[in-house]
């Protein structure tokens, strides 16, 4: 098995709900707590497994805002595991999930240097490295209904922009959607072979805008002339 996520950049609305629900679930999970520093102070910061960045792609008027959630990619060739001197970082053979054994980590930060995706964050309070667990304490839990045995971020996403599944199975939902929508991985040139895939935004015709100044007609040109004359 090769478990991971697919993130649909076409439908992500950038609401940060996945990050919040991740924090809520994992704060009391196997690698919890996720310490906050000055949560109500002047410089709020803290440990998160999931962060959402926002990019502008293209140039006006053919530009688009793309919301970009990022968590651990659970890479096939995970350098963070290779470089770990203590053996605290490991990749599970059975499902490919990359985890940090909190009892073994010495907090040297070396794995975070090896990760190109910024997936690992040191918890200053516990002195250990923390990262996305793919909700390993949830996806195998026999006590919750089968439909809910998914990572917290996937269940929460109001836009259904996140999918969870097995990339080794060619007929799984994630494999199919990656095939159909030309899903891709980030920074393939580094050779980490990440498991998580991203679906590109669908191509839409640009929405017409009213910047056609030369087609404005006589009234429009007069308006522009007055606008140039009046100082505001």
């Amino acid at each position, binding site marked *: 098995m090769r478990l991971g996520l697919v993130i649909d950049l076409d439908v992500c609305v950038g609401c*940060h709900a996945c990050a919040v629900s991740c924090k809520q679930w994992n704060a009391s999970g196997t690698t919890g707590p996720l310490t906050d520093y*000055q949560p109500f102070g002047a*410089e*709020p*910061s803290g*440990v*998160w497994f999931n*962060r*959402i*960045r*926002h*990019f*502008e*792609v*293209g*140039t006006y008027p053919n530009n688009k805002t*793309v919301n*970009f959630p*990022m968590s651990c990619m659970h890479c096939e060739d995970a*350098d963070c*595991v*290779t*470089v*770990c*001197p*203590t*053996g*605290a970082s490991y990749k599970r053979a059975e499902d490919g999930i990359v985890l940090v054994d909190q*009892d*073994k*980590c*010495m*907090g*040297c*930060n*070396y794995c*975070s*240097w*090896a*990760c*190109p*995706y*910024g997936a690992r*964050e*040191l918890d*200053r309070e*516990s*002195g*250990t490295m923390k990262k996305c667990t793919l909700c390993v304490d949830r996806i195998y839990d026999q006590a919750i209904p089968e439909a809910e045995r998914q990572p917290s971020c996937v269940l929460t996403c109001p836009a259904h922009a996140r999918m969870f599944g097995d990339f080794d199975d060619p007929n799984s939902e994630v494999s199919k959607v990656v095939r159909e929508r030309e899903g*891709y*991985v*980030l*920074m*393939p*040139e*580094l*050779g*980490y072979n990440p498991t998580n895939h*991203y679906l*590109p935004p669908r191509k839409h015709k640009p929405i017409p805008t009213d910047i056609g100044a030369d087609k404005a007609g006589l009234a429009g040109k007069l308006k522009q002339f007055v606008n140039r004359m009046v100082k505001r």
Partner: protein
Amino acid sequence: MHPAFSVIFFTVLSGAGFGLFALIYLADLFKLGGGLPGAYVFWTGVLAIVMVGVGLLSSTFHLANPKNAWRAFTRWRTSWLSREGVLSVAFYPFALAYLALYWLELWPAARHFAGAIATLLAWLTIFSTAMIYASLKTIRHWNTPLVPAAYLSLGHFSGGMILLVVAMMAGVQALPFVLLSLFQLFVAAFVKAIYYYWIGRLGAGSTINTATGFTRAQVKLLDAGHTHGTFLTQEFGYIVPKLTAVSLRLISMLLAFAVPLVLLYFALEYHSLALGIAALVSVFAGLVAERWLFFAEARHVVNLYHGAQRC
């Protein structure tokens, strides 16, 4: 990258310690300058071992959870950091055996054997330290063979300067030690000069386009998604101002190589030990600046998600 003082201190000090030990052994083996008096070899060897020990101890200060530091000896099959730990600890019994046999004036063959093994381990440890950085694909300023070349040459150069001062103190024939230091000075200076040239022209690498997958359009960060800083911005966000970098490069090259060269000339001309020591101090000041820059100038690819266009 954020330049952590404990790691700068550690790499400069233990690098010089390992270089010094290797050179003491070689000077002993080849009887450089007619052979250093026994007490000088012994106490300089002790100094080398102390420098290595203090450096290694200070490197544990940057650990957030040092109680698990002993586990760092377990993953030597894959991790250069673990290899560094294993090799540096393996260095100790051989180095101590060498010095003990020197003190006791016993079994020269066994002494040379222990010294040779310790020297080999010293070289491998410096190499491992450098490979911690050189093996990272995420930081192109480090992912080059010039990094181990610089660590090895700078460690031997700084250690060799200590040995030269010791030779001046001991009053032995200084010429072989001077030649050794001059040779190492030029090698180290050339390697660093090539390194600075190299990182100024890194060519194509990861960009904001490959980081986001939008390779056919201009991409710009609108919002990094955090209110204040994060662990990632604290650890990787530091950018050294261009002018600071250029002037520090100049200062470090002057202090580490040019000033010692001039001071050495006058030290030998006027047989002045004080000028020799001044040269040594200048070398270490230059190396601290060099090591600070080594960390500060490195750019991690995660910065592409925080607004950098290329790394």
